[in-house]
């Protein structure tokens, strides 16, 4: 699995990253292939230096669905809630549609600019001299510009709701690390606290990161049970 190297490339969103990972392995879009690439996806997410927050949120929402898929593939007996099932279905459906669009875009790129059909400039050869713009005053030009300047795209404003949702992964990792230094054992529930979905995903990713770094070991004694985290 680690033979596949992710190219250091900027992905705009979760769908293009996921589809690239899947297509690199020549797989089709289904839960098996999604489970297979989930590790790489999370790796990629953790390696990203800085991401606009709105973008980070969309990456994390997909990550949450991937973690569900991965967990289900590891524990076939795991029961998913209706909402969880829906988030997986949603991701699959969107990936399928996105894949279709990407394929269709290849038709455009293969034709684009190859055999341009030209138009004729409007009113070529028509000579009518100066047409007085009736009643036009400079103030009208001024007003037109004022209105135009109002429509200039503002620097992207991220809705507060999304900012609320995003918690920095590094903060969580640090928090867990510090806690592990103080206590020998803790649990995921205690660590994550009462958080929304994104918060849980981030906490879970943070925990996985520490496991990967060999700082902590985790044990889950029963399905849905809490995860014990201990210093390794």
């Amino acid at each position, binding site marked *: 699995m680690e033979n596949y190297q992710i190219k250091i490339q900027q992905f*705009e*969103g*979760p*769908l*293009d990253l996921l589809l690239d990972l899947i297509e690199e392995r020549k797989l089709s879009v289904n839960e098996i292939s999604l489970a297979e690439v989930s590790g790489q996806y999370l790796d990629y997410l953790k390696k990203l230096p800085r991401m606009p927050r*709105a*973008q980070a949120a*969309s990456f994390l929402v*997909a990550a949450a669905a991937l973690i569900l898929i991965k967990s289900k593939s590891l524990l076939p007996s795991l029961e998913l809630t209706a909402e969880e099932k829906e988030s997986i279905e949603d991701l699959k*459906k*969107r990936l399928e*549609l*996105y894949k279709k*669009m*990407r394929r*269709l*875009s290849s*038709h*455009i*790129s293969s*034709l*684009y*600019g*190859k*055999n*341009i*059909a*030209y*138009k*004729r*400039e*409007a*009113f*070529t050869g*028509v000579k009518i001299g100066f047409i007085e713009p009736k009643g036009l005053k400079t103030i009208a030009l001024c007003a037109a510009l004022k209105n135009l300047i109002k429509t200039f*795209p503002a620097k*992207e404003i991220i809705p507060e709701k999304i900012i609320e949702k995003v918690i920095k992964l590094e903060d969580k990792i640090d928090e867990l690390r510090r806690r592990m230094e103080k206590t020998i054992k803790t649990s995921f529930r205690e660590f994550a606290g009462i958080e929304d979905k994104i918060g849980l995903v981030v906490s879970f990713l943070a925990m996985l990161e520490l496991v990967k770094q060999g700082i902590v070991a985790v044990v889950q004694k029963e399905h849905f049970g809490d995860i014990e985290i201990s210093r390794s």
Partner: protein
Amino acid sequence: MNLPNIIESILFVHGEPMKVSRLAKILNKKEAEVEEALAILRNNLAERGLKLAQNGGEAALITVSEASGFIQGLLKEEFSGKLTRAALETLAIVVYSGPLPRPEIDFIRGVNSSFTLRNLLVSGLVEREISPKDRRTFIYKPSMDFLRFLGLSKLDDLPEYGEFRKNLEDFSRAETNNRENKENVE
């Protein structure tokens, strides 16, 4: 009065795409009569050095692709940028599933497309108009220039276009319902 020939002359002078409704007004004819004449004109031009391009209720005369190599050198200011992957994807969505508003494009791509869309508008490959469903929003659609840059005279000539449009109708209806329900929940 030879309507197809007169339309050919008008389109020749106008150069840019012209709405069928505007042609009808100038010619003092019904839109259906103009559409009929356009069909004849398209046919008249079948073996000629010009083609009739039609897109979204507009018509224009354009050159045949055989001539493009010779014309390229004659012109200034022709757009010839390379399309980025983001631009291509966005374009595909607008072309194959348009006209559609930006949130739908964002949903399919999983990212915010406002920057890419603005560039496509500026380059003239995409046009926007006020949505007939919601006058506060825009919907985006492929322009006649898009067709020209691909050397096509109508969207139907795009590979998989007709097929995709047919499937799309049912699919997008289902998707929209699904999504609206979810947005209400959140």
